[in-house]
């Protein structure tokens, strides 16, 4: 047996001899490490998990024509959309607006694609049915109230197309939309119907884009589209992106705070346990000092025990933490979580540092033990 083996023998024997007390400290470290790994994993994954959830807030990007133009080509929109991460793309809804009249009253008719509206504006409350055939129309609740029309009723629209020629059409109301916003005063028809009536096929004034990404990524995408498709002027819907970022940052701050509190509690638990161990081992420490142990030997022994606790507790914590994060992800977000392997050494390192710091005061007490106490029979 050499000195290193003797050191390890003393370390392990000492830990095993006080296994019930050390189990408490080990459990505290394991819980701390589990919370650290679990919370960090969730914190890393929250933007990905929540990104889809946030898309129910509506589009977070708008496309309009660049250079102050009124219309943009839908081909250019498609080119811009191709630059977005397709896996994260929720929906793209073009809108085309046209003034029309019905019974001498002015209205705004909007041509759009209803299959995309359902994706980018999931909060639209439609009573009746979404328009099916080209002759069906969805009217806003304010319009319905004013005209006393309901699903199944007919409305006669007239106006001028892009070349100035008059058009007129009798349309069937398929449903009434209520959003509490501007939509309540509009008449919605399929984009192809609008193109039939107003001409200028393949164009739109605005396109709403919903893509699952954080504010930084969205800004980068805006810059990319501006660069690659100069006819399109992409803009971020600030109220959506900023509120998303705000919610995420608060959630992550909360997670960080909870983790910090748990780590502090872990540190207190380990420090209390180690302090008790030092008090119990005063005679042994006094004996070792009487035999000629330097302070650094005493420090090495107690810190060694702390590091062992940190490593072992950290390993247990990694396993518990991964299970904890996976369970939360599956039960709360309804999807599996991505495991970041780099969190394992990071968790072990933090566990060792936390136990090491927790051992500082007990170690200080240990080196203050007077070797003479072994002669006093205390």
């Amino acid at each position, binding site marked *: 047996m050499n*000195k290193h083996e003797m050191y390890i023998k003393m370390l392990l*024997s000492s830990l095993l001899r006080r296994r019930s007390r050390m189990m408490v400290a080990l459990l505290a470290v394991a819980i701390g490490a589990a919370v650290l790994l679990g919370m960090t994993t969730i914190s890393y994954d929250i933007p990905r998990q929540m990104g889809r959830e946030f898309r129910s807030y509506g589009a977070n990007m708008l496309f309009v024509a660049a250079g102050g133009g009124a219309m943009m080509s839908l081909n250019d929109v498609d080119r811009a959309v191709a630059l977005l991460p397709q896996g994260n793309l929720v929906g793209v809804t073009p809108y085309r607006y046209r003034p029309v009249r019905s019974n001498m009253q002015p209205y705004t008719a909007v041509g759009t694609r209803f299959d995309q509206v359902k994706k980018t504006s999931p909060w639209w409350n439609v009573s009746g049915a979404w328009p099916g055939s080209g002759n069906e129309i969805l009217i806003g609740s304010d319009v319905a109230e004013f005209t006393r029309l309901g699903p199944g009723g007919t409305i006669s629209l007239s106006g001028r197309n892009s070349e100035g020629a008059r058009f007129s059409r009798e349309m069937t109301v398929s449903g009434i939309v209520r959003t509490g916003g501007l939509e309540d005063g509009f008449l919605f028809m399929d984009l192809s119907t609008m193109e039939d009536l107003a001409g200028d096929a393949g164009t739109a004034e605005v396109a709403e884009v919903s893509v699952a990404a954080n504010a930084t990524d969205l800004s980068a995408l805006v810059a990319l589209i501006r660069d690659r498709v100069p006819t399109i002027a992409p803009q971020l819907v600030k109220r959506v992106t900023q509120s998303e970022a705000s919610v995420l940052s608060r959630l992550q701050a909360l997670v960080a705070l909870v983790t910090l509190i748990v780590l502090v509690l872990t540190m207190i638990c380990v420090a209390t346990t180690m302090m008790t161990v030092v008090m119990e081992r005063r005679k042994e420490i006094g004996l*070792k*000092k009487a*035999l*000629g142990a330097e302070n650094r030997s005493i420090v090495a022994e107690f810190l060694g025990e702390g590091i062992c606790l940190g490593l072992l507790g950290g390993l247990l914590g990694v396993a518990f933490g991964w299970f904890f994060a996976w369970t939360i992800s599956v039960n709360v977000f309804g999807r599996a979580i991505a495991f970041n392997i780099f969190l394992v050494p990071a968790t072990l390192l933090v566990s060792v540092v936390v136990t090491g710091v927790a051992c500082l005061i007990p170690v200080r007490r240990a080196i203050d033990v007077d070797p*003479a106490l*072994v*002669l006093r*029979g205390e």
Partner: protein
Amino acid sequence: MGKEQNMNTTTSVPANILELRDVSMIYGQVKALQSICLTVKKGEWLAIMGPSGSGKTTMMNIIGCMDRPSSGAVILDGQDVSGMSLHALTRIRREGIGLIFQQFHLISYLTALENVMVAQYYHSMIDENEAMQALERVGLKDRAKHLPRQLSGGEQQRVCIARALINYPKLILADEPTGNLDEANEQIVLDLLRRLHAEGSTIIVVTHSPEVAEYAEKTIVLEHGRIVRTTENLKESGDK
């Protein structure tokens, strides 16, 4: 080599292993030791006696380099240790003093052999064979792998003696070495000490027992921190 050098920092070899010159120890208003003067020759066996509170433990602490006197000089193997730092005293203690305790103070989670090796561990290198030989010297070779709780009081004290001897100390300090032992084990331990003395070890024993003190060549009696009597044992060295 390190073991042989130990405390020899002077060129001439001093005849006295220990010399206390006018040593006093004061704790607040309490004078634990007052102007103690004492010499212990190399190879000598000294017994320190006295009632409780007479200053025996304080004197042991000072001689064992675990405390420093309030005044006076402590010359250990020709070196004044009274003004040394705690760090330097730890080194002196490690390299030159073997300690035997009334309560044995073995580390409960280590075997008898490992308890002896602990002293080697803090001293320099570990030599398992040498530790085993030390246990053999005290008649415990076959108990080497036993934990302290598996040993009798006498056996534990013999492990304590083996641990005290393992680094070839200049001075063996024994604090009531037979205080917790029955008669049979007391005799075994005293025989061991007598053998060590015969081999040239310097031994200082603190005891309440006149029978134990009779083994020493010289006995001093402390009262109220002063040496009130010094007795030379006329019998042959270590022979009762």
